[in-house]
């Protein structure tokens, strides 16, 4: 399984965390999976970055069983 953590406005669409099976091979596939799951979040998901091991990863980053993936909306600290 892969654990997903959602933040900020994403929590209006997804739970704070959930698990997905590890047939999603990379970040691109995960992003598509999430858009398919909640189309109303598609604009927000298009703006999100993803992080594994607390480090931003790109679309081609391969996902592995046991990963925790953070789904990161645009920052708005300060």
């Amino acid at each position, binding site marked *: 399984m892969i654990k997903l953590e959602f*933040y*900020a406005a994403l929590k209006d669409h997804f739970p704070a965390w959930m698990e997905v099976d590890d047939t999603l091979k990379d970040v691109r596939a995960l992003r598509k999976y999430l858009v398919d799951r909640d189309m109303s979040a598609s604009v927000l998901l298009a703006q999100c970055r993803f992080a594994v091991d607390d480090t931003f990863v790109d679309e081609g980053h391969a996902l592995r069983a046991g990963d925790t993936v953070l789904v990161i909306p645009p920052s708005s600290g*300060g």
Partner: protein
Amino acid sequence: MEHLCTEHIDVGSLWQRSHHPEAGGLVLFSGEVRDNHQGKAVSHLYYEAAESMANNMIAALLEEATQRWGLHVAIAVHRLGKVAVMETAVVVITGAAHRKEAYAANQYIIDRIKHDVPIWKCEYFAGGGRIWGGHCSCKEERVDESVIF
């Protein structure tokens, strides 16, 4: 976590430890909660973070700025949870031999915290309703929906 805090940020006590015999210029930035957002009365803000990632990124950012500008002082703390109007949501303190470096480093650090570090604000309005995010005042760096896909 050193750079995140859920209680009132004690700016006075951070300032007390921000002095160095080789630092001739100290700059402190405090981001404080305004009572309005584009004319709508704000009741309070709520901040959340991807905590360990945000804390590590701020630590790395301070180290990077220290090297780049030769800082003697580099401190940053961001508040999480509910923050009232006029309270400090984030504080950045930089100190260098001369003021030019202290200002430049300070602005760099707060820009990166606002744009890159996974911290989010939710504005709660006095008349009800809330909105996540909102735009940074430096609009030229705003995320554009068209650029990612």
